């Protein structure tokens, strides 16, 4: 049998349930073969709808879905070479673990001996051999998840679609299962498309993160790019770890943007390739772990931005300390200070500090607010 490619291409993919509201708005995306792709977004952003359209449980209103270069729109799920792992797993409650996993093989008409041989090998892989005769209700959440995974993988799909696979688990188990998913993906070597609302999950697992908002892709790329270089305020805030603030542009000199507001006179941001003009209101992002705190009065190195502020709250996080500041008015401004650094000279609530960072580490975000707003 020829090896089927599991690359996915979505072209102008659109879905509307009622003809008035579109839940997916003309998505274009290429997912390479064998990638671990995470669709990330809040509930109602259309990510599950996309997954269900790839799986064939939902028909697109418009657009194409290509798997391995072949348009699969209108094909039934089983001919697409996809398998879906459902949210809360949707295991067959009346069948044993073994029969759950063997279900697709039974449909394909394999003899009992054949399908149990394959199934037992798969159960071995997900370490469920001892539980093969249990019913789903007698399993823990993590075990159920492994059954669901085995049931989806038994058909040897080229694409595995996972709908919020970890959301039904508690925190500790979620971290363990994350590793399990990663291991399975490496073992199987097929494309995984995983839908989640948890940015932690997405960046921990994915080769490719697709951030969605209201039916549109906001940014798609490797996890590190999306996390470290968010394109706009939405992506930056959704992925977290960034301070986002806005200001009115005063001048652009030597490719450095400076701001009009008096409290931001020591802030400069590289303009990069974006076109900004005097008077524009622009969003700026600075990673929280790039922010250093310095007592007032100490001289700063050149090419350093700083904001004068007051400590609002201090939260000990173990390996770092989260210091919340009032530097940017309404926008939350937080510094992640390494634990040892913080306790050399701890700050308390109400202390006046300077939040500083090297100018070149701040990033200009794509505009989401118009200058007149």
């Amino acid at each position, binding site marked *: 049998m020829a090896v089927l490619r599991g690359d996915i291409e979505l072209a102008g993919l659109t879905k509307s349930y009622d003809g008035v509201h579109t839940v997916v708005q003309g998505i274009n995306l290429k997912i390479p073969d064998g990638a671990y792709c995470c669709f990330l977004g809040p509930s109602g952003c259309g990510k599950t709808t996309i997954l269900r359209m790839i*799986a064939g*449980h939902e028909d697109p209103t418009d657009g194409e879905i290509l798997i391995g270069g072949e348009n699969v729109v209108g094909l*039934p*799920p*089983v001919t697409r070479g*996809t*398998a*879906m792992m*459902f*949210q*809360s797993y*949707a*295991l*067959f*409650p*009346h069948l044993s673990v073994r029969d759950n996993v063997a*279900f*697709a093989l*039974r*449909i*394909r008409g394999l003899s009992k001996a054949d399908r149990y041989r394959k199934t037992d090998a798969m159960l071995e892989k997900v370490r469920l051999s001892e539980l093969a005769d249990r019913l789903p*209700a007698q399993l823990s959440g993590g075990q159920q998840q492994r059954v669901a995974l085995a*049931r*989806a993988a038994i*058909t040897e799909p080229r694409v595995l679609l996972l709908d919020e696979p970890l959301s039904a688990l508690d925190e500790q188990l979620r971290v363990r299962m994350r590793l399990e998913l990663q291991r399975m993906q490496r073992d199987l070597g097929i494309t995984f498309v995983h839908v989640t609302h948890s940015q932690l999950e997405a960046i921990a697992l994915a080769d490719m993160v697709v951030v969605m908002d209201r039916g549109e892709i906001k940014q798609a790329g490797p996890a590190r790019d999306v996390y470290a270089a968010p394109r706009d305020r939405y992506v930056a805030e959704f992925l977290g770890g960034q301070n986002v603030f806005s200001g009115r542009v005063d001048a652009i000199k030597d490719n450095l943007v400076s701001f009009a507001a008096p409290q931001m006179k020591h802030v400069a941001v590289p303009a990069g390739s974006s076109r900004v003009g005097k008077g524009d209101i622009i969003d700026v992002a600075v990673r929280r772990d790039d922010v250093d705190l310095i007592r007032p009065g100490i001289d700063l190195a050149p090419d350093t931005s700083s904001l004068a502020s007051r400590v609002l709250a201090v939260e000990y996080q173990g390996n770092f300390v989260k210091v919340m500041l009032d530097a940017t008015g309404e926008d939350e401004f937080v510094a992640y200070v390494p634990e040892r650094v913080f306790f050399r000279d701890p700050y308390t609530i109400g202390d006046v500090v300077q939040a500083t960072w090297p100018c070149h580490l701040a990033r200009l975000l794509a505009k989401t607010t118009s200058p007149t707003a």
Partner: protein
Amino acid sequence: MRVSRSTISWLYVSPLMFVLIPFFVLPILVVLVASVFETDGFGGLIPTFTLANYATVLTSGLTFNLYLATVKFTVLTWFFTLLLGFFVAYFLVFHVRNPLLAIGLFLICTVPFWTSNIIRMISWIPLLGKEGLINSALLRIGLIREPLEFLLYSGFAVVVAYVHQLTIFMIVPIFNSMARIDKRVVEAAIDAGASRFDIMRLIIVPLSKSGIALGSIFVASIVMGDFFVTKVMSGGGSASVVSAFYEDISVLQYPGAAASAIVLTVVLLAMVALILRTVDIRKEITR
């Protein structure tokens, strides 16, 4: 005031007991006692213990024939109500997308129950009778030359009337158990490549078992315990177990009737036990 836990438990079951004891336990005790008394032949009971009533019931060939006839009606009715009930419920749960429409259609299923049982039976006469709609239509288009006799006052008519009356007792519990099937479970089966028939056979039927069992209990116990439909729709041509001891009562043979009633109760209990053995309803419901 502190109330012990067992008192509270008794309080919880008391409403049910207030209904069950006077309306079920006491009457059945009276029947049980009457069944082992002798009769004076004029409606009086002589309080001496005897098993003669049971001996008469159990050794009579008539009893066997009556049970055979009643079981035949029960099985036929059960089969057709199950067939109809299952597919009506299946349609309502899995094919009607709009839940409001499903509830509306479900209510329409209950419309026949807005009229009395007797009227519903009588209304079959103009349809099935010798000069009824079906016969005259078939005569008119020349399919038959003589009116079909078996349509009314026959075993056929009895089964038609029972199915008409009792299908709803199948629809309701099956609808209920189907409605609790997670739609994603069905999707998971589609994802695995299951055809509509596979899904029905491997997913829906096994997961509707409790509803099917409950509906079967309703239908079987109602048909076994009924004599009126048999009597009216067969035109007196068929008898049932109950009609026999109804005759006994009308000639004041209370102990004999009581013994028959106890035998029927035992048979019904055995049937229900058999159904419950096949399907563990308690386990299915708490699943």
